[in-house]
């Protein structure tokens, strides 16, 4: 699923980037658009046609031979009662065909599993492709009722579904869906792809010092850096906070407790001012994911009665001070998260913002092991220009639309100020924790330069500044939750760059390509490639990072054959490093772990792999092939190849059983 997301994303980005070229006038007469596609959308399990599905045709510009429709035209067809659709007047080229239908996971031509990879459909000039089949897999569902200790249904409460999946070589719980209970307390996840799920109600408490709430309510002047910083911290916690006197917040002993609209209304506090909460509950009745029931859902399966009975408990307060290198740090956001490696994203239990003297109080913390996380990124060096807002009133509706500034000057320069961060472990028993000191440290940053190897014209300064040099967590833990800001650096006209300071951890560097025929060759630091091998920034800044672009991409191509020697149009060709050290912690978008579907004639083609030693294999089923155990099995049957700089290699393959 992750891989699919990444592929589609790339297609979209490229299509936007290429549009000026696509519409550039050409000396040759335009080719005649006479190809057509006649196809069917079918239920993958029963083979029955699906009426009313919407099929979308996109030019697959990710492929070099792209001549398909431009990005401004994305024709869509709704299937008839027999599930059929027709696209006409097409140029030759490679196309992506996707289909959607309520109750089904989005399908695509070439997919063999709901989370599998699509394949391009190639059309010759004037070709008529008949019986192009797009399978759709029915979603499964999980439904239940949420009640409180009195048996009263809880309304408007969020329940979350986590799928157990592999990410960067680790099994993780990845949040795939959330659902709100209706007026009967009923929730329903209606779009679950087949897999194993954990379902949970997650407790979340936000509380703020009274003066912080008041400060966020008055308008912030554009030049008021402290007010703007507080706005950013509030936004990091999910936006504006409610005030007492509204239904969204109440005063609790010196702090303002938020009444979250997607959480149950908490029980009233006792005379003692104790805080009662509904603690996190994993179905059926576990406080942590380790003892949760794994619910396995097949395509089309409807699981009911996954009910929650929430019982309030008296929760503790965790209070203390955030101290930076220059003393207490005011108005910085704190997140108390579960100390668990099970989740892709941090599971927040309580959040707050420090007061004027760096003091904080986190409300509603049940007994357990936690980590307090703080990340304070430096604010922008110059305030962003204010876009001109246009207010459009239609009847009684008002819509604001911002007029984009005429030239986007590129991303703002990376400030010299440090990123401050903390990760402080906290153990909470059944009593308040006070006097905690959360020390902020300076995050190390990556500095270096960008180089170009090749004869092509180098990008100009305007293009250079749009190169994003993006640190990515090697363990593929969520970028958003890991940073709460974009830590990317951008080369200046001379090619020099620096990233923001980063919280301690292992990182991989990623870049986007500048266009103009340049592709990434390597990102090295002291002789090792940190686009594959994570680098630890815990010991401060890392200098001399060299990002090298080349204009000579490697190319790997060939044919996949079935056991009887015929071309295999249904294989998935997977490439992975020979060194098993690269089978985990390869981030969310690995460079050396790639897969591609074979085309109708059994051919495959992959370009831009970094030079190195690889295994390449064609497999039937594209299950979770990135699972290190599967890779170990595949390594035994795969073909070893070595790609050197700019090399084109042909490797024919025999399809094997493959993943699971």
């Amino acid at each position: 699923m992750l891989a699919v997301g990444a592929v589609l994303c790339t297609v979209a980005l490229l299509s936007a980037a290429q549009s000026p070229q696509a519409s550039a006038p050409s000396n040759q007469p335009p080719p005649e658009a006479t190809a057509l596609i006649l196809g069917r959308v079918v239920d993958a399990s029963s083979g029955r046609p699906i009426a009313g599905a919407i099929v979308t045709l996109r030019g697959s510009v990710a492929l070099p031979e792209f001549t398909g429709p431009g990005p401004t035209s994305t024709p869509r067809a709704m299937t008839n009662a027999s599930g059929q659709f027709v696209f006409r007047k097409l140029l030759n080229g490679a196309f992506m065909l996707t289909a959607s239908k309520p109750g089904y996971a989005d399908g695509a031509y070439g997919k063999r599993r709901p989370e599998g990879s699509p394949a391009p459909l190639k059309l010759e000039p004037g070709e008529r492709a008949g019986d192009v089949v797009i399978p759709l897999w029915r979603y499964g569902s999980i439904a239940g009722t949420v009640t409180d200790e009195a048996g009263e249904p809880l309304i408007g409460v969020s329940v979350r579904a986590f799928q157990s999946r592999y990410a960067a070589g680790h099994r993780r719980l990845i949040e795939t869906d959330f659902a709100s209970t209706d007026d009967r307390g009923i929730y329903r996840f209606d779009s679950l792809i087949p897999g194993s799920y954990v379902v949970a109600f997650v407790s979340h408490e936000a509380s703020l010092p009274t003066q912080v709430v008041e400060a966020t309510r008055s308008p912030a002047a554009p030049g008021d850096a402290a007010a703007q910083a507080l706005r950013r911290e509030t936004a990091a916690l999910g936006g504006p906070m409610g005030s007492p006197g509204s239904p969204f917040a109440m005063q609790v002993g010196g702090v303002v407790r938020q009444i979250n609209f997607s959480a149950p209304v908490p029980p009233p506090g006792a005379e003692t001012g104790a805080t009662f909460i509904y603690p996190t509950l994993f179905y059926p009745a576990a406080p942590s994911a380790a003892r949760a029931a794994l619910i396995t859902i097949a395509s089309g399966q409807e699981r009911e009665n996954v009910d929650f009975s929430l019982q309030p408990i008296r929760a503790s307060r965790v209070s203390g001070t955030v101290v930076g290198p220059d003393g207490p740090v005011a108005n910085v956001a704190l997140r108390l998260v579960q100390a668990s490696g099970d989740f892709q994203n941090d599971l927040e239990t309580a959040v707050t913002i420090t007061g004027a003297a760096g003091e904080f109080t986190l409300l509603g913390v049940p007994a357990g092991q936690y980590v307090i996380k703080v990340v304070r990124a430096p604010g922008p060096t110059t305030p962003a220009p204010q876009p001109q807002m246009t207010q459009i009133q239609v009847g009684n509706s008002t819509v604001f639309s911002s007029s984009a500034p005429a030239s986007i000057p590129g991303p703002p320069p990376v400030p010299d100020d440090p990123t401050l961060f903390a990760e402080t472990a906290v153990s909470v028993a059944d009593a308040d924790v006070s006097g905690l000191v959360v020390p902020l440290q300076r995050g190390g940053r990556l500095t270096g330069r960008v180089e170009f190897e090749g004869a092509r014209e180098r990008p100009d300064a305007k293009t250079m500044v749009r190169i994003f040099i993006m640190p990515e967590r090697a363990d593929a833990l969520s970028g958003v939750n890991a940073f709460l800001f974009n830590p990317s650096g951008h080369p200046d006209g001379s090619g020099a760059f620096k990233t923001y300071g980063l919280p301690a951890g292992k990182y991989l560097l990623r870049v986007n390509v500048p266009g103009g025929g340049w592709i990434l060759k390597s990102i090295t630091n002291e002789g090792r490639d940190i686009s594959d091998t994570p680098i630890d920034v815990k010991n401060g800044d890392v200098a001399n990072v060299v990002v090298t672009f080349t204009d000579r991409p490697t190319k790997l191509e060939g044919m996949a054959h079935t056991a009887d020697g015929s071309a295999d149009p249904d294989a998935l060709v997977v490439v992975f490093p020979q060194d098993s050290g690269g089978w985990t912690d390869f981030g969310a978008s690995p460079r050396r772990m790639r897969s591609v579907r074979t085309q109708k004639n059994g051919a495959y083609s992959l370009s831009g792999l970094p030079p190195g030693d690889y295994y390449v294999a064609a497999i039937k089923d594209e299950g979770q092939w990135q699972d290190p155990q599967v890779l170990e099995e595949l390594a035994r049957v795969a073909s070893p190849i070595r790609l050197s700089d700019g090399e084109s290699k042909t490797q024919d393959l025999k399809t094997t059983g493959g993943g699971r």
Partner: protein
Amino acid sequence: MIRAAALLAIAVVAAHPVEAQTRDAAAPATGTASIAGRVLSDTQPPRPLRRAVVTINAPDRTGSTAITDDAGRFAFANLPAGRYTLSASKRGWVAMSYGARASGRPGRSIPLADGQRATATLQLPRGAVITGVITDQNGSVPQGVSVRVMRYAYAFNSSEKRLLPANGSGVDERGVYRIHSLPPGEYYVAAFGPRDFFSQSRDLHLTSDVDVQEAQRAVQAGPTTPVTDVVQRGVGVTPVFYPGTPNMAQATAITVRAGEERAGVDFTIQYVAVSHVSGTVQGPDGQPPVNARVTLVTNTPSIPDTGIEGIRNAFLDNRGQFDFSAIAPGQYVLMARMAPPGPTGPNAPPPQVLSSIVDVDVQGDDVTGLTLVLQEGLTVTGTVRTDGTAPPPRLNALRVNLAAVQTGNAVNISTGGTTVRDDGSFTLTGVTPGRYRLTLFAPTPWLVRSATIGGQDSLDLPVEIRESIDDAVITLTDRKSELSGRIENGAGGADYSIVLFPENRAFWVGPARRILTARTAADGTYLFGNVPPGDYQLAAVDDVEPGEWYDPAFLQRLAPSAMKITIAEGEKKVQDIKIGGGG
């Protein structure tokens, strides 16, 4: 509506000026009064509502929030003397203010003296439910459709009743929608198509039998035989009202009682033929503009407020061309805007905005070849002044806005606000011609006394802007005027709505700052805490629907029995009212 507003004969009691009560702004937030009470269901017999959220508020003071216990009880202690309003809400139930006659109506405030212990009971109706199934003309579940229930009400910026959205829901994969927590009342249900705000190209065609047959023939015949072309007509979804009509006038109202679940509100959406709207945008130099944005806005009077569904945005290609697809028949406003680069920074002038606007009528055929030539908008330049003794506000934290004043069902387009510079000057650019009010949100204790353009106060009379303006003046004052009093009808605790409206009928342009209403408090007193100085009429009515007071016809009916009253700047006037006879 007027039937509910029984006019009351008012006997004037001599107004007696009192010394302005000096309220210490820094008074401690704790006091000695309290309010305790219960939240109950409005059923027979009432039952306690636990976990209801109760809020208490008073003017110029931070409010408090409490949660009811298992017996529905709540309490607010340590309250300073003042006039308090109470409200209660509970999910699945309808929020109510204390003393309100229905949901959405103003409550009665509770005056508290030092040491006073008041009690209050709030009763909430259970919310109603409307649920049903949406299918398309082929019996399939349509994609991306949302359902909204709407009701007629006075809009905040209008003096007439309109169909306004009350609540909404998505449609699940079975086509089911469910909208709950609705106040009892009369509703219209409408289904809307996908939100296309950000997408420019949404071509969708239905697959016809002849299309499939001809394609099959072409596939079998091989690449050398010519293909018979079949037109693939684009379709889209336009708003449909229950029981299945695109016409608001033919919609069927659904009336629900408190707690009622109305199931089976099923209806079908139709795919209608849609068109492309395409053309070119040129800069003032005739060249394709850089980074201009084109917006197409629905302006069909028979379609109610569609909000974001009524708006589509597009960018231009490098030849300045745009192409909107899937545009349903109707009237539209097409607007192009562009902000050329300029200096930035806190005191830099805002970028000049170029724009162009045309009306577009779509009748089912493609509209092509439109040309929009960008022109510089109008500029409004002015100054913010203060007149008072309080510490002056931070001028560069203030924002000035030009609010378009709606006329009919038209689309109004106005430039967003601008920040005031350190020296109090401001410049609004890219202003399209129209009627405007110049507005500013003043921080306490400052109030906007006037916002003049060419000497005319736009807050009272919207100003027609046809050319650039350089004499706008916004004046802030810290002298607040107040009007309060007691209504006596001989029975004690008189319960009326008081309407204060300007004597000058030219100012009856909603939402006018001089049209004010207040509900009498539990002890029969009333208070207008901030009255712009001027000549007014004061009337008491039994009940009034929110927003109705902006309806000139309503005010006209009040005028003959109303009492004239003049408020000076900074005056704290007390005006008691005796009601007799015609009540």
